[in-house]
């Protein structure tokens, strides 16, 4: 086997490795969801919704869609192919709220659904607001808001 032949074989093998395939899937699914969001944002703005409200509406729409698909059991099938492609967009956040809520229904509405709904959303909110507060303190000190 000459060098070129060998290199071609290696390249063919590498292309089939799961990491590469996962990344391609993540790129197209994740990019697709963001493009869908952008399209929705144009649609809402065309209907006369102000820019910032349109952005919030896009978030709410994608979360609604993800919650619905999770409830129907479609989201998990998609996520198995898309990997981070459905996880990273706000759809993944929605799924991480809906999924444990569904699973813990039989443990009761308060300590089951009510508590477990924050399984992943809790850490996200905690560290997000924590980072925001740290930034806020630095920002306020820097601009002399405490004086």
């Amino acid at each position, binding site marked *: 086997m000459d060098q070129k032949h060998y290199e071609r074989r290696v390249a063919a093998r590498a292309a089939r490795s799961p990491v590469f395939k996962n990344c391609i899937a993540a790129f197209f699914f994740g990019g697709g969801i963001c493009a869908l969001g*952008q399209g929705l944002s144009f649609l809402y703005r065309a209907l006369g919704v102000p820019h910032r409200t349109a952005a919030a509406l896009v978030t*709410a729409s994608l979360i609604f869609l993800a919650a619905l698909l999770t409830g129907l059991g479609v989201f998990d099938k998609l996520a198995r192919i898309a990997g981070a492609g459905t996880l990273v967009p706000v759809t993944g956040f929605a799924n991480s709220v809906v999924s444990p809520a569904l699973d813990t229904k039989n443990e009761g509405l308060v300590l089951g659904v009510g508590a477990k709904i924050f399984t992943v959303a809790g850490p996200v909110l905690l560290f997000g607001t924590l980072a925001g507060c740290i930034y806020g303190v630095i920002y306020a000190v820097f601009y002399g808001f405490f004086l």
Partner: protein
Amino acid sequence: MLVDVLNAFWVGGLFCVLAQLLIDLTKLTPARVLVFYVVLGVFLGAVGVYEPLYDFAGCGVSVPLVGFGGAIARGVREAIHTDGAIGILSGGLTAASVGTTAALVFGYLAAIFFKSKPKRM
């Protein structure tokens, strides 16, 4: 307009590829990746990178969870300007309120109306 959709596509896609690499090549679990992305978003907002990135890619940065963080950073900053130091405490969750409330309400409704299906996380 089409250019904006395309920019949202590839920038958003790249955020997802980075997360996929973190999951496949490191020990980070999906939940940790989400937390990392929110904090990354706050950081990008704090150093002034988030806003220009948002102007370029729109939903390509606001739809991935970094957008949640970016919104928190912007909310804190704006609340400090309008209300003073109390904005440190009020700005973050105010900015995150739509996403959080939508996820909780739709999540609860889904739990009421649907039955759990066997799945792997």
